[in-house]
């Protein structure tokens, strides 16, 4: 039996809806750990309030945030997954059904950049990227709705044969520029190398990596650790009103490239919207988070 349009449609719809109501478990655990460690009482209280908000939204099946962002999906297609579907159309239809029926309704945030008109629909919406993976017999779909609050602080710069020092200085400066405004504590995704487009994609995907996972590349694992410490020393704190917790994790990936080296940095706010499901040929849809 193949994976069908109906399964993809349903998953696209559910993933978005879940992402608005549930803060991922790894993120709640990281916020709780940060709360224990915080030395500033006001910051501790803000972290406690964030956890309370997450808990209430989940219990009541309501939104954590009023800004539902724009729909962003990632599709990983296993080479052994049996397929009989038109992903592009099915995901769009799933999203369209969602905006017509979701309770509570979502605000109109899809913006035409040329006219600034806002609605539920627009060119290239939903934004979907596809990837293939050898050997898997399933399709994995991830949804990470993106809103202005943290979205606007992403940055990319092109260097030529940079030293690690130049790279890390740039990453710190992007964090300084975002300051108090991206609903901290945040998750930072960083891409190093490749090309302009590939580097941005690496950074984005790193924001989807679960917190607490160790980078398999030792150089990057050490870089992640020291940059996490460095960004937290900035003192921005939860919601930007001061404290020891500005970032929950810095996640970095790299790619070989030419001597021109892009470095991309992007952020997820504390609610860290991210839901994932696997679709199997026997009709099963397994919610991963």
């Amino acid at each position, binding site marked *: 039996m193949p994976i069908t349009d109906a399964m993809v449609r349903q998953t696209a719809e559910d993933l978005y809806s879940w992402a608005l109501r549930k803060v991922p478990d790894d993120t709640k655990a990281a916020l709780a750990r940060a709360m224990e460690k915080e030395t500033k009482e006001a910051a501790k209280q803000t972290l406690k*309030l*964030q956890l309370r908000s997450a808990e209430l939204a989940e219990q009541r099946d309501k939104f*954590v*945030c*009023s800004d539902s962002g724009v729909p962003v999906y990632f599709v990983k297609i296993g080479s052994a997954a049996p397929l009989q579907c038109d992903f592009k159309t099915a995901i769009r239809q799933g999203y369209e059904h969602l905006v017509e029926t979701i309770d*509570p309704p979502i605000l109109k945030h899809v913006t035409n950049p040329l006219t600034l008109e*806002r609605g539920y629909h627009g060119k290239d919406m939903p934004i979907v990227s596809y990837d293939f993976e050898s050997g898997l017999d399933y399709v994995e779909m991830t949804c990470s709705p993106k809103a202005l609050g943290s979205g606007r602080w992403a940055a990319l710069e092109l260097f030529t044969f940079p030293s690690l020092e130049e790279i890390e200085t740039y990453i710190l400066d992007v964090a300084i520029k975002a*300051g108090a405004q991206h609903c901290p504590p945040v998750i930072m995704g960083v891409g190093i190398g490749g090309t302009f487009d590939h580097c941005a994609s690496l950074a984005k995907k790193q924001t989807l990596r679960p917190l607490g996972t160790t980078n398999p590349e030792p150089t990057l694992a050490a870089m992640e650790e020291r940059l996490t410490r460095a960004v937290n020393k900035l003192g921005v704190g939860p919601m930007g009103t001061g404290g020891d917790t500005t970032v929950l994790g810095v996640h970095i990936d790299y790619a070989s490239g030419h001597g021109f080296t892009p470095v991309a940095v992007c952020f997820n706010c504390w609610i860290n919207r991210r839901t994932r499901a696997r679709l199997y040929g026997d009709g099963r849809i397994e919610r991963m988070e």
Partner: protein
Amino acid sequence: MTGTVEHDLRLPLSEADVRALRVGDIVYVSGEIHSTAGIPTHVRMLECLERGEALPFDLRNGALFHLGSYNIEDANGDLQILYMNPTTSTRFNDLMPKLIPALGLRATGGKGGLDARSAQAMKEAGCVYLSFLGGGAPILTDAVKRVTGIGWRDMISHYRLVRIEVERLGPLTVAIDAHGNSVYDDTIKAMQEKRASILAELRADRERS
């Protein structure tokens, strides 16, 4: 809460109410607030004031918060807020220094703060900036008692100027007070001061690993 001063404020506010607040204090707000999340709404307010036209509501001694809300009119014609939550205030950096005195605001707020120009306007006019929890929709919406008015219904939901009666909206943090103190300006200054030492520590860490 140890070491934190809490205030229960009821709108409208006097200048003395506002001057009594200090950066870091925790505030709960009751009474009628005004909310919008739209830049076009702020521009429209300024245009109205410049032309001497009346706004949908008189905001003097009141509060204008940068909150996005989904508001509906139910079958009985009653207004309802389904949810509300702050938006980034720095988007209004160019507009708030004019709007704070022109509207006669005693409180504004949202998330992410306002820049030094607004802090100066707040010091002169007697107004504070309150930091809301971003991603706090369940907690903030619980404080809503009823919607008492929706201005500019020709705009999309979160751009409208909405008048909402709230009971103990909060906890909110005083992030810019009426004495020229701003947690945001302090953080920016501190980050610039610390940058060199943080970079030196990164270098030392790299050399060790």
